[in-house]
């Protein structure tokens, strides 16, 4: 692996007095999909919130292209190119689909926005049919498409996805994973959090296993898929 694009080292984070991250370290390299798996409450969402600047780390470093982003505001971090599609989709329910997508490109001023807009609509044709509708009127699957589409509108240099397939029908899960692979092929590195650990490890190059705020295992995705402990704990096998 070449020099990592995004690199976390020894990150600790708290909610009040509750420690949620305990010295977490991970890297995302050029052009790779990295899966972060772990049980409910392990700290996956907290990891992404900390990277995005929504939560300030108490200790540790977070570097993007070798430059520290700790202490930057969340909106500044977006401008640096780290874009997140958060857990629970968090689309704006009372804005139209079009407004939601435009907000994705809020921080941008370049001329490639129109091209990205067309690309999002070709990845998710359903959004194109519903541009005038309020986000809150979309089905769960469509809202997920909107959340990912909105993140792509930001022209991410690194994409963080928090449980993008949660609660979707199997067909929609496949659609979403195809899009993830497609976006990655265009060169965008992705840090992927998934309930569906098997699918995540199948699409990822490498993976990390998170338990109570710290990484307990990491390696090539194929190795983790074959690992006995991982199979038992996260892939539902005995």
């Amino acid at each position, binding site marked *: 692996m070449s020099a990592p694009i995004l690199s976390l080292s020894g990150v600790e984070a708290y909610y009040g007095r509750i420690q949620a991250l305990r010295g977490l370290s991970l890297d995302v390299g050029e052009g790779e999909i990295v899966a972060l798996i772990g049980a409910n409450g392990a700290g996956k969402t907290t990891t992404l919130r900390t990277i*995005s*600047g*929504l939560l300030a780390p108490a200790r540790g470093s977070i570097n993007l292209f070798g430059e520290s982003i700790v202490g930057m*505001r*969340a*909106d500044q971090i*977006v*401008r640096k190119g780290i*874009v*997140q599609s*958060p857990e629970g989709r*968090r*689309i*704006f*329910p*009372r*804005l139209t689909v079009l*407004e939601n997508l*435009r*907000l*994705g490109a*809020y*921080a*941008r001023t370049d001329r490639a926005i129109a091209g990205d807009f067309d690309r999002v609509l070709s990845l998710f044709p359903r959004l194109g049919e519903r541009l005038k509708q309020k986000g809150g009127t979309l089905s769960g699957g469509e809202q997920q498409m909107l959340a990912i589409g*909105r993140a792509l509108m*930001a022209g991410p240099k690194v994409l963080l996805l928090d449980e993008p397939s949660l609660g979707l029908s199997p067909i929609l899960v496949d659609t979403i994973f195809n899009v993830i692979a497609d976006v990655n092929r265009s060169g965008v590195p992705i840090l992927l959090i998934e309930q569906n650990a098997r699918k995540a490890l199948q699409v990822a190059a490498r993976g990390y296993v998170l338990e109570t705020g710290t990484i307990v295992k990491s390696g090539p995705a194929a190795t983790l898929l074959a690992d006995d402990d991982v199979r038992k704990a996260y892939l539902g096998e005995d």
Partner: protein
Amino acid sequence: MPEIHQFFQQLINGIALGGMYALIALGYTMVYGIVELINFAHGDVYTLGSYFSLSILALIPLSRYTGGWQLWLIASCVIVLAALLCGIVGVLIERLAYRRLRNAPRLAPLITAIGVSLILENLMQIWKGTSEVPFPQFLPGGLGVPDNVFVVAGVGIHERALIVVVVSILAMLALNLLVFRTKLGTAMRATAQDRDAAQLMGININGTIAWTFFIGAALAGVAGFISGIYYGTTFFLNGYQAGLKAFTAAVLGGIGNITGAMLGGFLIGIVEAMTSQYISDQWTSVVVFSILILILVFRPSGLLGEQVPEKV
């Protein structure tokens, strides 16, 4: 005067009054929509609007001979400056008093808001004293020129009432364009709906919240100017009653809902005018605040609010 003419007369008065309430109510509702704070100092910013207007007017050599387009030019400049100054005050209030309490328990910012209100009222008391202050009624005809009255189908319409209605509607149209057609407006609505998600879009929410305070306070400044023109007088405690009534209007329309604040403002204005005509002047506050209590009990989301109130 025939019964029906009297009714329409009061309807027009009510609409003029309602326009001012609507302008003030917008500030309450926008601020509530974005930070869930009832900014009790907002009514006093409205009074400040007429105080700033007075001070600006004092710099302009108005005489009974100033007329025509010059009057409108002066009025426009005073409105813009008063709105700007009030907007700056609004931003300062947010920055100095409310921002650091954004994640504090709700009671803290509420009490702070009452404190800010008292500070503003006391400052204005020091500034221009405790009696009513005359406001130069230079519109529409010039200083000291009596107000024109149009008679339409037997109903007299004062030109001053017309100015109030036109200015408040223009300001509301501008606000609608800003909130629903511009990037800043979209950012404001997004921040109101989901602050974290808004940050993830690259929106600087501190900036957006500051702009919301600015715009709300500026609208109150516009209302302060036109109230001076309409009543010909101002008073350091004007904003107390007017603020409470405008707050009622915002709740009636559905707090957090922009269209609701405008609707609520006009309704409260009309109710007040009708009460003073058909019941008694002294009962207007009782009626208006009874409405507030009734809404809070029976339909807390207001006329246009959804169960979860629609924000900015």
